[in-house]
């Protein structure tokens, strides 16, 4: 049995590497395939596979985020994503390494507070449940009011919300989150990279040296913000990162990357725990695990934590190696052609997985995403695509 567990972890890591570095392929897709195959395999083994894949994915998905869709300028504008800012200065590898530090230490810190988190979640479930619409609305309003261009931010939030409602109501569509998130968060950046003829500098394979304090501050803020947002639907890593940076005060690019890395992994780990503790799955993977297991026990949670640590440790080194290879090669690749190839690949994946009608979701999301990117507001307002449908559910 131990060998089977080990194999499930390894296969999960391999799947997580694939979903992490391939744009447009999300773990929810693989988790749903695993769910469909659940009658062929031992449920626990399948869940180990999903947990290992999900944790690995959170380590690797910064690779396409950092290396693809970079802007045309030197990356100093406020609207430019922190990973792209470092990529444009030749530190793409360093940027990925910072998110890895965040993911690894964040995972270990989250495990350290897990018993406390579980107790807190169980005892506060009533309050959490009652406060869902108020909290997610408050977070969204807070983020809009933080912008200089409040009207544009509110418009993007509402347009994304309408797109979310329409996408979830497009009956022939399978996997609606796939075209929704691909179009809002992926396609606009790729489109602008082609339009602006972005050129990537030769990358330095160098570590970005940080003082201990510069690591501890974002990690603690990440832990606090993740603990909060992992309890609420429609609130994800992006919002948690902004809340985390608000807790800390001003954050430089390096600290912010550690913060987002930690949040990404902690939110994923906590989603399995909340599925056990309060029966609410806050991620597609946790939903699949809960559905496969039906009866979610404490023993299963403990096993999943061990799996998460094993997958996290291996992913750390694998991701470093992959980022190093990409950083060395990216300078010699025609960046516009690479982005175009990714767009075509993503389009094909969407049509294959979600159906031909997904093309219309992709087009709408692309236009909304372009508004957010051109106007220079935070892209996080496009999470209105989940927040608004969730709010409507509670009304």
């Amino acid at each position, binding site marked *: 049995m131990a060998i089977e567990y080990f194999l499930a972890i390894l296969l999960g890591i391999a799947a997580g590497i694939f979903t992490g570095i391939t744009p447009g392929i999300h773990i929810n897709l693989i988790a*749903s395939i695993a*769910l*469909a*195959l*659940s*009658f*062929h395999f031992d449920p626990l083994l399948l869940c180990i596979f999903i947990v290992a894949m999900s944790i690995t994915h959170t380590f690797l998905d910064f690779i396409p985020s950092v290396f693809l869709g970079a802007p045309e300028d030197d990356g100093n504008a406020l609207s430019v994503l922190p990973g792209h800012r470092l990529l444009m200065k030749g530190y793409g590898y360093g940027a990925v390494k910072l998110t890895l530090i965040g993911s690894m230490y964040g995972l270990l810190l989250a495990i350290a507070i897990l018993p406390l988190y579980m107790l807190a979640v169980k005892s506060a479930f009533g309050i959490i449940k009652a406060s869902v619409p108020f909290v997610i609305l408050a977070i969204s309003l807070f983020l809009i009011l933080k912008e200089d261009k409040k009207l544009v931010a509110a*418009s993007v939030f509402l*347009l994304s919300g*309408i*797109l979310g409602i*329409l*996408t979830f*109501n*497009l*009956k*022939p*569509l*399978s*996997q609606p989150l796939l075209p929704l998130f691909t179009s809002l968060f992926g396609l606009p950046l790729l489109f602008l990279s082609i339009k602006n003829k972005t050129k990537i500098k030769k990358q330095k394979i160098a570590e970005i040296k940080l003082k201990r304090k510069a690591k501890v501050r974002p990690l603690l803020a990440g832990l606090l913000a993740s603990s909060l947002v992992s309890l609420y639907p429609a609130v994800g890593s992006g919002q948690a990162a902004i809340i985390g940076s608000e807790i800390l005060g001003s954050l430089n690019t390096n600290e912010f990357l550690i913060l987002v890395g930690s949040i990404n992994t902690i939110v994923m780990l906590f989603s399995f725990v909340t599925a056990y503790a309060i*029966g609410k799955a806050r991620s597609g993977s946790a939903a699949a695990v809960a*559905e496969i297991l039906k009866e979610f026990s404490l023993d299963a949670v403990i096993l999943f934590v061990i799996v998460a640590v094993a997958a996290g440790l291996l992913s750390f080194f694998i991701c470093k190696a992959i980022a190093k290879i990409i950083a060395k090669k990216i300078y010699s690749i025609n960046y516009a052609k690479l982005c175009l190839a990714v767009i075509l690949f993503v389009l094909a994946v969407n049509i294959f997985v979600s159906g031909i*009608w997904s093309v*219309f*979701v992709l*087009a*709408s999301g692309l*236009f*909304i995403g*372009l*508004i957010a990117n*051109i*106007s220079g507001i935070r892209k996080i307002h496009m999470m209105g695509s989940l927040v608004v449908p969730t709010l409507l559910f509670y009304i």
Partner: protein
Amino acid sequence: MKKKLNFYKLTFILSILSLIFLFFLTKCLDARESSVKEVYRKSVGEWVKISGDIKSIKDYKTFTLLEVCDEDCIVVVSKEKINCEMGSAVEIVGKIIVYKGKKEIETKELRCYGN
């Protein structure tokens, strides 16, 4: 700068137009009505719409299981608490899932029409 502003305006107009088009698509496109027998032949993840009678209801902590039958029967999973009674006629719109090797429907919309 002027070019950027024009592009910005264009994306704004296109986003609204595309949402209007998508709205009409959601009104025009519906999950195709199927018999339970047809559901068994469809793929996992597809949207379906079925009508039938409730043969049994089992309430669990986080979900409810219904057995819905026309000429054949299928298990329907509802994550919401439902207020239907046994014998009620129901119309269900949902997605096909598989549990323990058997196809089931996970509901998105469920309407009861009395006993």
